[in-house]
């Protein structure tokens, strides 16, 4: 990989949870490694509860990792001052309704990080910067003095993104940034992410459950299952040639908005539900639902290996 911006290595995030009289670790993220290139989008997908948000939050040090390391521009994030780090890495959240203070004006919301990081030397400069950020995300100057609660979901999401962009970050974790928006508004926001990347060269870790959205926006995609990455590849490659049995069934289950295409496909249905992360199966975590599982799968957890052309898969039998 030529120009790596974020490097995540053997990252673990265990949450202590009480079970009876004991405290046992919930392995939300269990030995995850990947990289995000400068100006690149890495999509992160997987079932609810598989650890996507936790990966994002741990990278940004909203949680201290249980083990493993995260490097940003070659430097360990744990060596960096947290304020300095926030200037490089930001996060955009799913819910545009709860993540903004409704009593603040748009100007105050976007201006706050500018003040925290002392990025403007006077009021005029601050005002100009705010208007510039607003124009990036398609908001008008007259919106500046209005309150967050006066805006629609799509507009609020734009405000959240303008705020994240205020510090000129090189990397943004986008956690389900379009899921709460009406379908007719999603495209506006997806385009805005893509345009900003072209213009500013910012890299994204893009978490979403809509696989078509993730495919559209991402250069590469990582698939998670129960705290582990089971496959990473180029977006098109992953969609055309999924290798891991979980990825295969996940992709086959996505309804395509094209009747002929979607009805011609065969869904590969998975039996049962995802096991509890507190009762993780031994070996490959997917084996309880896998139609290719063998004895070996129960004994040992398969490692991610390159199957050619940077297509990584963690499976014994595929």
């Amino acid at each position, binding site marked *: 990989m030529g120009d790596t911006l974020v490097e995540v290595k053997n990252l673990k995030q265990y949450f202590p949870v009480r079970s009876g009289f004991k405290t046992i670790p919930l392995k939300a993220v269990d030995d995850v490694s990947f990289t995000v290139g400068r100006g690149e989008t890495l999509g992160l997908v997987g079932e*609810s509860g598989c650890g996507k948000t936790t990966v994002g939050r741990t990278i940004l040090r909203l949680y201290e990792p249980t083990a493993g390391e995260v490097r940003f521009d070659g430097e360990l994030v744990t060596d960096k001052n947290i304020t300095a780090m926030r200037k490089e890495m930001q996060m955009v959240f799913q819910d545009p309704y709860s993540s903004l203070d409704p009593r603040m004006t748009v100007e105050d919301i976007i201006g706050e990080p500018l003040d925290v990081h002392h990025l403007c030397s006077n009021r005029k400069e601050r005002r100009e910067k705010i208007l510039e950020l607003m124009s990036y995300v398609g908001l008008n100057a007259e919106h500046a003095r209005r309150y967050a609660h006066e805006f629609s979901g799509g507009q609020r999401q734009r405000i959240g993104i303008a705020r994240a962009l205020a510090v000129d970050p090189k990397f943004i974790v986008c956690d389900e940034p379009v899921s709460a928006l009406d379908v*007719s508004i999603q495209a506006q926001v997806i385009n805005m992410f893509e345009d900003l990347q072209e213009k500013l060269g910012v890299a994204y870790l893009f978490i979403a459950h809509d696989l*078509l959205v993730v495919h559209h926006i991402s250069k590469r995609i990582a698939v998670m299952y129960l705290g582990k990455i089971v496959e990473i590849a180029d977006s098109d490659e992953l969609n055309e040639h999924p290798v891991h049995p979980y990825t295969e069934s*996940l992709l086959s289950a996505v309804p395509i908005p*094209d*009747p002929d295409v979607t009805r011609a496909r065969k869904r590969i249905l*998975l039996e049962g539900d995802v096991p509890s992360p507190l009762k993780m199966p031994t070996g490959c975590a997917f084996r309880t639902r896998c139609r290719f599982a063998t004895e070996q799968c129960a004994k040992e957890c398969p490692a991610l290996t390159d199957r050619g052309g940077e297509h990584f898969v963690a499976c014994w039998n595929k």
Partner: protein
Amino acid sequence: MSEKLLSVQDLHTSFFTDAGEVQAVNGVNFDLDRGEILGIVGESGSGKSVTAYSIMQILADTGRIVGGKILYKGEDLSKWSEKQMQGFRGKCCSIIFQDPMTSLNPVFTIGSQITEAITLHTEKHGREAEARAAELLTLVGINEPEKRLKQYPFELSGGMRQRVMIAMALACEPDILIADEPTTALDVTIQAQILELMQDLQKKLGMAVILVTHDLGVIADMCDNIVVMYGSRICERGTAHEIFYNPRHEYTRGLLRSIPNVNNMKKKLIPISGSPINMLNMPKGCAFCARCDNAMKICLTEIPEELWINDSHKAACWLNVRDAFEGKEV
């Protein structure tokens, strides 16, 4: 003409709020045949759920059907007593919702809730009802039904709860199943299981399904016929094929252009501009006018009528009329 299973005729439903009257459904018409899967898709707030609740007569206190008729096998439901309507709900028509947690009672076991639905609507009681409950759980693909019947809703996963809801809805083998965003809260792989289950049951039991969803993928996958709603009206309707491959309302066209699909992965999406309409301040003409790139003068002032595009397709868009007049290919 054969008698329709369900016929919704010029339905008007409003909510009377402090801020004024919200005309949530404004002149909606459609028919449902036996065994048909009808999809209702559209903008958030366009009146999809309210249409469904109007059929069931389960509107909030402030809501009222203010016009039109709903005929079930030719009979006008507005003439039915509340007692008859209770029979209608469950025996003739059942509904499942997006979030099964809100419709399952957390303090009762799954078993007691399903058996209650069974005793309420059928002749079966006691042991017999319990046996039927276990049978229904098996039907919706739940293993070890006897064990599950003793469990509480919180002990089940989201997908399992939705299966329980479907089992309850099917307790009396209704002619119509209304599913309001039945898989929106579920993961894709679980969604696939539920959709497969619904298709399966629909074939096996021959019931008609009204599937309300904003997910065009689910619609494309499941539905024979599709109704598209915008601003409390139907703006377009037709077979799945017509709606996806020959959309004739500018909102439908815009919607299909704006979503990622197999053939536009490498292209920029084309968004619908503007933001959703304010229901308290409905535009005078076509509700979509303010967001439509091809709007004409007439669109501002006159509500377009639904016109036939061909014998399996109707749309309410002034552009179609213009196209016809100008002799363009229709």
